[in-house]
């Protein structure tokens, strides 16, 4: 850059010559107009509006002019650069609009193309249904208790008031575990989740509010409605002043939580050695709501037109069970229930055949995702 020179005549600096400035301006405007897309416009911007563009270089020369000439030259170059800037902006807008209109459309893809490169798996609906039911009770402040699947006979039977030769003991077709010498081992595959009642009472502080979901085993051959391995969810409350009314409330919470509101439940007197009084629990058929009873034209296959569906057993914990678990039945009382998870799944999701639940066919399980 040259030093100030008062005698310098601006007209004699070629880049600042009015014709030259006009030419640079015209050239830039023409290039802008000619840019066909945003990429070309970017090139044009570099050539005509960047720090190294002719107009920018011309602008630098202004500083070397004598003060009198600066204003005139500045006005001339500044005007040209402003025009170029505006033209760029306008063209940018036009081209962006055009891109939005045309180019993005041309770039469209088929969004229905699959992209299942990494397949997803699923959790078994018996698992998720059991969790769902357990969580209903966890939400009421219950905890989840657990126990072994190979269980001592004492826990599975004796402590639950199944007397040694009582017919009730043979009602549950039990898998017996052989001792090392082929003799008795005192062990069975648990036939119900009820031994967890005794374990919970032995291992927890009172009061006890627990549910115990888990596998259970009986010597039933697999068919459409039976499986030698199945799942129950046990509920147990032992506290002071516990009544059947709370048991009913717990059962109603299950029915409402799984099958929705407005379904009636009923207790039928029944018998279990570990509860007294005992009851079977039915819920109103969620399909026909009783409308199929006695109406042969509207037979209901869900409840066999009974109007009610059996969902489990329950009752007041037999004080003898409390005694065997070291709890004073004079002070504490309790209730318990057992619900069938397979039945819950069958009813809640219309599963027709037990085989589907045990065979592990991925088509069955996939339908439920990982959190049904």
């Amino acid at each position, binding site marked *: 850059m040259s030093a100030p020179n008062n005698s310098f005549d601006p007209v004699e600096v070629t880049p600042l010559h009015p014709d030259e400035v006009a030419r640079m301006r015209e050239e830039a405007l023409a290039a802008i107009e000619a840019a066909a897309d945003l990429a070309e416009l970017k090139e044009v911007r570099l050539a005509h509006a960047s720090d190294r563009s002719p107009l920018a270089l011309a602008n630098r020369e202004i500083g070397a002019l004598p003060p009198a000439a600066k204003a005139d030259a500045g006005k001339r170059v500044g005007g040209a650069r402003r025009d170029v800037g505006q033209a760029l902006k306008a063209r940018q807008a036009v081209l962006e609009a055009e891109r939005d209109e045309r180019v993005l459309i041309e770039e469209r893809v088929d969004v229905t193309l699959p992209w299942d490169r990494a397949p997803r798996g699923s959790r078994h609906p018996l698992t998720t249904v059991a969790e769902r039911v357990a969580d209903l009770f966890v939400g009421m402040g219950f905890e989840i208790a657990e126990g072994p699947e190979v269980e001592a006979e004492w826990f599975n039977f004796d402590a639950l008031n199944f007397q040694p030769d009582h017919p009730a003991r043979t009602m549950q077709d039990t898998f017996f*575990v052989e001792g090392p010498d082929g003799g008795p081992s005192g062990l069975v595959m648990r036939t119900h989740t009820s031994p967890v009642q005794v374990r919970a009472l032995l291992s927890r502080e009172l009061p006890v509010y627990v549910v115990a979901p888990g596998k259970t085993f009986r010597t039933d051959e697999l068919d459409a409605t039976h499986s030698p391995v199945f799942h129950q969810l046990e509920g147990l409350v032992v506290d002071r002043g516990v009544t059947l009314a709370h048991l009913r409330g717990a059962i109603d919470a299950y029915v409402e939580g799984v099958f929705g509101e407005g379904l009636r439940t009923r207790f039928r007197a029944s018998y279990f050695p570990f509860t007294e009084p005992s009851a079977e629990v039915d819920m109103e058929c969620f399909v026909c709501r009783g409308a199929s009873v006695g109406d042969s034209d509207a037979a209901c296959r869900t409840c066999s037109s009974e109007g009610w569906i059996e969902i489990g057993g329950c009752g007041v914990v037999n004080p003898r069970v409390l005694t065997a678990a070291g709890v004073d039945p004079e002070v504490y009382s309790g209730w318990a229930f057992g619900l069938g998870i397979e039945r819950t799944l069958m009813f809640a999701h219309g599963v027709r055949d037990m085989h589907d639940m045990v065979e592990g066919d991925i088509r069955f399980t996939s339908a439920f995702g990982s959190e049904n």
Partner: protein
Amino acid sequence: MRVPLSWLREYVDLPAEVTARELAGRLTLAGLEVETVDALGADLSGPVVYGRVLSIEELTGFKKPIRFCRVDVGRANGTGEPQEIVCGARNFSEGDLVVVSLPGAELPGGFRIGARKTYGRMSAGMICSATELGLWEDHSGIVVLPEGFGEVGEDAIGPLGLREDVLDIAVTPDRGYALSLRGVARDAAALYGVELRDPAAAAVAEPTGEGHPAEIDPALCDRYVLRGATGFDPDAPTPLWMKRRLHQCGVRPVSLAVDVTNYVMLELGQPLHAWDRAQLRGALRVRAAQEGEKLETLDHVQRSLDADDIVIADDSGPVNIAGVMGGLTTEISLTSTEVLIEAGHFEAMHIARASRRHQLSSESSRRFERGVDSAVQLAAATRAVELLAELGGATVETAYTHLDRTVPREPITVRASHAGSVAGVDYPEGTTEKWLSAVGCEVERDGDLVRATPPTWRPDITDPNDLAEEVIRFEGYENIPSIRPLASGRGLTASQRLRRAVGRALADTGFHEVLNYPFVGQRDLDGLQLEADDDRRRALRLANPLNDEEPLLRTTLLPGLFKALARNVGRGFTDVALYETGLVYRPRPDAPSAPILPVDRGPTAEELARIDAALPEQPRRVGAVIAGNAERAGWWGPGREAVWADAIQAARDIARVAGVELEAEADQHAPWHPGRCAALYVRVDGERLLVGHAGELHPRTVKAFGLPERACAVEVELDRIERARTPVVAPEVSTYPVATQDVALVVDASVPVGRISEALADGAGELLESVRLFDVYTGEQVGEGRKSVAFTLRFRAADRTLTAEEASAARDAAVAVAAERTGAVLRG
């Protein structure tokens, strides 16, 4: 227990409008579960009338003898002319009173009667057999009615009882009393608030002398009645009404003497035995059998008796297994005229054991093991001999044997409010007394207390809660309010949450959950290629497996997974990944058998320890198998086959859920490929703990289970992974820039990458943020038996921007440790 409604109504005045279905509903709610209501004869329609056979013409020339009959049916056929009917039966004569279904009638089973030509004659109707009428099973001929049974031409449907509603009740083990009409009637009477006419209440005259001599052991039998009937006509037929009722109750009519014992059993719940008295030798003794004594029972089986069996013995030895089944030689026969009826009250548990021991479940044993009224024996035996007299022309012996060693029952004392506090309902004053009286208790009120002595037919009532149940079931469970319980628990345990999260993580990475049976067989263990001394061969054995090929309980999850995989592949799926979370059962060496502890108190810690020692270890494991493509082929390009590394990564993913790092090490462990198997470890308090294995399966295992080639599997013990969990301390997140350094190291080809990256991490110091392998190269450039491994090291400081020199120094330190431990050389 099958209960014909008309029979029940003999003892209870149920309102006439009560239907069988309604009664069934109320009985069911009160604890007598009516499984079905059979409307017998519901599809029957007339005309079915009495007829008299006027003439019989034998037709010949057919394959079997055929009769052409003219039968007087009065004006039932509209004309009053004899009805002409062709009949194949031969057990009737001219003048017999028979049952005729006329054209237009429909018999049970949708059998429509019409007029048709058969055997060359027109046959307009049918002379009916008992089977055709639905009365009972009898294919020997038509029903010939006794003279005076009905008037010719009159409707026979009603008088014959062809329509009957029968309740089929599934009696629970505690309600033995309901295995009788009498017991069901008592509950029905209470439910409807009407009188019960107790069929056992009739007074019995005192004996006029000693009956057949007998002795009892009161521990085995505390009441014993023997009553004789002499001059019984063995040819006397069982009357139609009795046969019909027996049939409706599911009991096959046999002969009058046997039918009478069954009828009284159904009526009163007391099993009876009828001997041919002429076959008995001397006094009868109720005693324990002697080991090795033999008896051939009615079913023609020679049985070896057990010292626990109760037998009835005469001078010749055992003649009955008491309460279970009679002996063959003394049994009443079709020629017996001297009948001795036995009604005993045998100890329930002995009968239960004997029934199971001899695999003889009879109507009798079913009742005894559930509890029979200890006071009904005399009434039952008397009822039986009186029926033999009435129907079989016998004479009842007025001298009889009645040994009574029963002990009166003690009263049970409860607060009058007890039932209400169990139910959570405020029952009105007097409710408890009302219902306890209704079921037969003797009830006495004493201030706030009620003293109830249970009746002899309710041995199940022993505790205060048994009394509460009787009150609540009649008050109705439907009247119990519903109150939601509210507790204050602490939610799921960490372990329970982990289990769910592991399942979700595996499902998200492509595995489908299966729930396999835990039953395995020797073949499965062999298929796993386990050595003879492999721990996993030591499995618990079931005494009564469903399938003799699979008597063992799984010690590993893998066989079940393999079978599920093969099943899916067999159903046309080539890319399958499965997982299971569940227990395996690992018996402890020399485990004792589990003790049966007392139940009249809680167990001691020592007693519980004895049970624990007997139980197998039951760790929770996660297993997974994967075959085919781990990533699918598609329009984007080819798929990626699942390899050993996918299985190991699945294990790492599982551990990652718990926030635990796994260390992998090459191992040789069945059923995996010996060169492609990793043992997986965690660190617990600085110690290495094996948690499982993963990798590609051994080709022999693949073949044994019919799996796709190169299938891969993993099995880890979740319980052990959990033990490595430590509380998470939140990292401080530095916002200073990262300094990245790549290093390529040349090592001997046998050096595991895991060891190199571990050495780099150890050497890099605390500036290291991460170390990650990005390339493995073998080839000419690094030389035979060598490999080049390239890592990216990321460094970052918490408090400053690292200089290039600092990052390089850290990298050099890392490489130095790697060089020292693995002989790694920086690739030039």
